[in-house]
């Protein structure tokens, strides 16, 4: 209980919001739109998982939005070129892994600060994409949407993939040696080294994984509509980071859980639709979002403050 206070206070805020909606806007719980809203968050969820891992090792990756956009367009072009979904998936994963590996090399082996490295790769990939694609949408091959399934089937598949991924990642992180190494490196890289863990390898691995997840997320986004918008990654890094941070993943590494990140994402992703359903004018959106972020963590702040004295 004490250890998961942050996660719980975020979950409590989420439940409160959901209750409010149940009381004042029961339409919110209509099945089909709810399903759509949830599936729309799956790509962000995948990114959030990656970001949470990166943050646990005491690094940051702000290039994920750009990576996502580039992978999406690449996968789209591959599919438009008449190749099947497996080929576009492979292309996206490969491209993501490559971009992740580049970040990883610079951070882990050259010991550059990750914020700087990923700031640089963020603009690089974004500009490369802009110059290359010039803002044009990519029209996908017909069989891509919903993996070629029916809409419901596709959405359930997506939710399944998302859920399985969270569960798997959370399990591996908690219960495998490698998962614990992530925490160890984020907690104290030098101590990790002295304990026989290779911090550079762990950091590198996490960045590669982040890139691969960005590729996967791009494909999971791609299958939800018949076109790719090259701007689809803009601002995603901030959403994913905000979700992880609100969910209690420490910026300084070593502390936090994927379940917390999930709770953070759900909370943030519920605020925006909630405003529509509660008939709040759109220009209040950002202010309320900011307030909710602050409120969700203030409880935690007051608690740790009390603990200190």
């Amino acid at each position, binding site marked *: 209980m004490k250890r998961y206070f942050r996660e719980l206070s975020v979950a409590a805020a989420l439940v409160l919001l959901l209750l409010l909606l149940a009381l004042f806007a029961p339409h919110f719980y209509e099945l089909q739109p709810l399903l759509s809203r949830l599936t729309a968050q799956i790509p962000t969820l995948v990114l959030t998982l990656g970001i949470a891992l990166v943050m646990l090792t*005491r690094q940051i990756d702000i290039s994920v939005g750009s990576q996502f956009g580039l992978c999406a367009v690449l996968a789209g072009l591959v599919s438009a070129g008449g190749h099947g979904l497996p080929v576009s998936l492979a292309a996206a994963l490969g491209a993501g892994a490559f971009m992740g590996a580049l970040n990883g090399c610079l951070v882990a082996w050259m010991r550059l*600060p990750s914020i*700087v490295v990923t700031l640089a790769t963020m*603009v690089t990939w974004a500009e490369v994409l802009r110059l290359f694609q010039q803002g044009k949408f990519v029209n996908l091959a017909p069989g891509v949407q919903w993996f070629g399934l029916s809409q419901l089937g596709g959405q359930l598949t997506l939710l399944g993939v998302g859920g399985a991924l969270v569960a798997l990642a959370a399990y591996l992180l908690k219960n495998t040696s490698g998962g614990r190494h992530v925490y160890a490196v984020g907690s104290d890289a030098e101590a990790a080294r002295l304990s026989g863990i290779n911090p550079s390898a762990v950091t590198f691995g996490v960045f590669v994984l982040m890139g691969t997840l960005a590729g996967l997320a791009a494909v999971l986004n791609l299958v939800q509509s018949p076109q790719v918008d090259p701007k689809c990654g803009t601002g995603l890094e901030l959403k994913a980071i905000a979700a992880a941070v609100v969910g209690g993943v420490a910026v300084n590494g*070593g502390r936090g859980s994927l379940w917390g990140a999930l709770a953070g994402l759900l909370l943030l992703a519920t605020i925006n639709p909630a405003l529509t359903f509660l008939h709040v*004018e759109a220009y209040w959106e950002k202010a309320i979002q900011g307030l909710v972020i602050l409120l969700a963590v*203030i409880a935690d702040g007051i608690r740790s*403050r009390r603990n200190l004295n």
Partner: protein
Amino acid sequence: MASLSPSLKKNVLRHESLLLLVLLLEFAFLCLYARNFGTPDNLSNVVRHSAEIGLLALAMMPVILTGGIDLSVGSLMGLCAVLFGVLTHDYHLATLPAAAVTLAAGLFAGGFNAFLITALRLPPLIVTLGTYSLFRGLAEAITQGTKTYRAFDPAFLSLGETRWFGVPLQAWILTAAAASFYLLVHRSTFGRSFRAIGFSPEGARYAGLSVQSRTALPYLLTGLVAALAALLFTARLRQARADAGTGYELCAITAVVLGGTSIFGGVGTLPGTLAGIAAIAVLTNGIGRVPAVFKAGIGGELASLLTGALLLVALAGPELARVLSTRSAKISPSPKTL
């Protein structure tokens, strides 16, 4: 000049000197190959256009030095611009009192961040992520997103164009701000405390430093400076709108980081930050003037790309040299912040 502070001296030999070299090369290249780059008119444009981001970067530097971050500065600029518009238009205040109230509001907003960060001990990243949304949201709510304030006092608007001794007003303001922040960071005990807190807040507390108030100060200053930047921005653009300063926080952070300040706190110099600001400003202005670039119409993209590359080169350079010279001599990584 009297002796530099020892830590400054050491850094000057590392990162900042490389950056300065890059800046000079950049400058020389642009003077040679970019059309009309070196003209006085254009150089004053370089300063005028980078004044707001430059001010934010100067104020951001001490924040990052304490191991914090302030993502809300751009949004606060929007809020202050709107507030200034409301005061002059809806409340018919004269320019001077309105500006004073705006500055006070900026200080207050900075104080809000500082309160949450120091009194409640919330991580700066989350707090300012929240206020990043909140401040912009308030600005949008006040204007309902659409309202634009125009028609300001001509004397106020002329601030955007004024020159003293042939040098734009912005340059004077930047110089004054840079000098003040230099004194604060490198010459006063405040700066020393920022550094100590950045390295280890616990260590600073056990040394009897007033960690709370010293951590709060840089956030108050970013608030104040964001308000000042909002006023300058309003004067330059001749209007106040909720979207003023969008994305400026990232530009400011980029300049600070490029200038060699460690995002984990403790390490960094103000001259480095200045060089970072200048390198970006010169690049942004100049690269689009190289004929091959403007013919292809890729000025903006190339400027961003080169900024990214510059970041990597400037940081990787000294690091590479160190790695190559002493492969194993590794100072233990900086201790974690709270």
